[in-house]
């Protein structure tokens, strides 16, 4: 168990009707409130919106939250958004956990609202359980080599290489054939301008 007292905030997103159309978010919110370590549980209409994020930052300050659970969409979509929100509130971004109740609950159990609500509750429970053990993590910073590799010397590779080179970066343009030009070089004229390809 972590040393400090756990103060978890849960934020349940309606995502308009996307989630709230299937999942009874108020039931989920109330359920989350009952979970150990949860000090506040709130519903947002759109958690990712500015007002939604402001509500989270406010709650972090008000309730001295040290873990944040957001029950909304897939982390692949808005985890970066909410990590930034935590950073702004002065909290380490690794103290965030997302419960995916949209792509993996509301949208896949649309004809079973009760079962979907139950699954959403349990998904939040799993996220809160995990959040209890989250720790602040420091990201490692690595230097960036100021050069780019472009694989393929067709029209796309040539254009990308030129843009990067014009911006002052060193570019290695690698082409497996003996000449660059790719398929485009074989074309006579090109649409819609009917001009020459080479």
């Amino acid at each position, binding site marked *: 168990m972590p040393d400090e007292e756990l103060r978890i905030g849960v934020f349940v997103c309606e995502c308009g009707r996307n989630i709230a159309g299937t999942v009874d978010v108020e039931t989920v919110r109330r359920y989350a409130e009952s979970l150990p370590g949860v000090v506040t549980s709130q519903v947002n209409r759109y958690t990712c919106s500015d007002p939604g994020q402001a509500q989270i930052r406010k709650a972090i300050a008000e309730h001295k939250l040290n873990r944040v659970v957001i029950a909304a969409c897939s982390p692949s979509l808005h985890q970066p958004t909410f990590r930034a929100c935590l950073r702004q509130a002065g909290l380490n971004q690794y103290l965030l956990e997302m419960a995916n109740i949209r792509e993996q609950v509301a949208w896949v159990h649309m004809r079973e609202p009760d079962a979907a609500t139950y699954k959403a509750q349990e998904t939040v429970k799993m996220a809160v359980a995990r959040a209890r053990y989250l720790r602040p993590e420091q990201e490692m910073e*690595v230097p960036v080599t100021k050069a780019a590799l472009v694989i393929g010397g067709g029209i796309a590779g040539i254009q990308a290489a030129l843009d990067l080179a014009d911006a002052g970066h060193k570019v290695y343009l690698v082409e497996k054939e*003996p000449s660059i030009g790719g398929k485009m070089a074989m074309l006579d004229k090109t649409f819609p*301008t009917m001009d020459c390809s080479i």
Partner: protein
Amino acid sequence: MMDAGRHPNIELMTYTEIENITGYVGNFHVTVRRKARFVDESECTACGDCVPVCPVIRPNEFEMGLSTRRAIYIPFPQAVPAAYLINIDECLGDVPIACGKCLEACDKKCIDFDMKDRIERFEVGAIIVATGLDVFDPTGLDEYGYTRYPNVITSLEFERLISAGGPTEGHFIRPSDRKQPKRIGFIQCVGSRTEISPDGPNPDGSRGHPYCSNICCMNTVKDSLLLKDHYPDTEITVFYMDIRAFGKGFEDLYRSSKEKGVRYVRGLPGKIREDPTTHNLLVTVENTTAGRLETHELDMVVLSVGFVPPEDGHIKKLLTLSNTSDGFLLEAHPKLRPVDAPAKGVFFAGCVESPKDIKDSVTQASAAAARAQRLLNKDRVSVEAITAWVDHDLCTACGICVKVCPYGAITADPKQKIKAVVTEASCAGCGACAAECPQDAIVMRNFTDLQIMAQVEAALAENPEEKTLVFACNWCSYAGADLAGVSRLQYPANTRVVRTMCSGRVDEDFVWRAFELGAAMVLVSGCHFGDCHYMTANHHTQKRVDKMWDRMERWGIRPERLQLEWISAAEGQKFARVMREIEEMRRQVTREEIEETKAIIAKRWRKRRK
């Protein structure tokens, strides 16, 4: 092309293959093989004196085999670099008795038969993949007779025949009698928008692919205008199912083609026959607008062939890239990050991502360059803190983690009893080491045993016998589950998903704990082999699950209750189907069986743990 060849910031490496790429965002180590051209690229002036003396004649690939080249050649007159090369497999060699004639003919003495492939290494911060496309080969569509009838050609062969720089210097003639054809037909969607099914007539895609190749409609419109320009009295018929003229200026071009008398017939021909004496072609088609069967006699037919994804498994594997179901590369997000690869620091440009025309390729290339610059303009970049560290109080220096790490990021010496150390910068965060460590001495930051076990326990605290616990890897299976959601595919609601970065992270302990808590079914899911975001980490998943199945058999637990599936990010359908299939299996699991399993696990697994 010329600009790229002479730009001071571009190091152009043609006739070069990627041997290896290692490293991570901001710090990639690239190894290339610069194949020997046998002609000094910097000295060659492309005078061409070597060509007439070369006795080896081969089909010219650039001209689609419509003309010939020698064993010493330049791919095409405007090639960059403007230098000759020798195809050494075709060349007779430099021994005077065999040949060596080009050596004498070259005044600049830039031919060198001792030239060897050179391996070069360099470092880059970002990579743009622009490996392009292949063109569909219509040989599999036997009804069009591409390999049998000389006057059936592909749209790419058409390009060479109408090009002033091509084998006929732009005089458009047909192959059978070298006369100018008067009646020309174009057949659209050759190799595109075709059904593929495992049991149907096109299981391997040799008859085409389901997607639209994007450019063929406009390419034919353009070709019809070129013909009308050069030979206004040519009769042109285009056989199509839909004309997709959706881009800027495209509709004008299509209209102008129709105004110039090009006939558009809605319907794809079922068959082409040839008159053996005239080599004219008889095209039978159902004109679906007129509702009648028509036969058109034509002098020449152009097959408007589509795109196929390039065969470049090597680069895909090196950069851990995946495909969408059509074979083109999968982007990080189809709308919000369309030119980013899921792997950080890698970007896509051009047709390798999807079929597109020149304008879109150029646009995407500029976007990819801008995305790469966003990275290159920084001095430092942060990498996610999902890395492993070793608790030396627990580590016994057994060395198992060293063997399973796909990145060689861990060092340890079992003989000298030197405990394991992780090089953080090389660790990509798959967690295979943490799953394999017999001492549980490895901690995966942000995916610790404690964190994952807490999820497992929370998921199975209530009614575990009614549930399926799913371990899904972040990059493929979890994304596949998301896609099922985006596609609104419905499946049973008794699934509980635990996300790990890689299926290789799924520790035996997680699975046994799930069964001990009474789970009816457990699914471990990850990327297909070759698609794993962590190179070969999912091979360890397979091995581990095999081992667990053996144990279950020995212990008297039905192995079917632990399932293993490879589900890609593009396989939302498969995720939903697997969930439905597993639910069928779950219904067969009785409460008695679950109680029995709990007792077995308590005895066997708990004993092993001690």
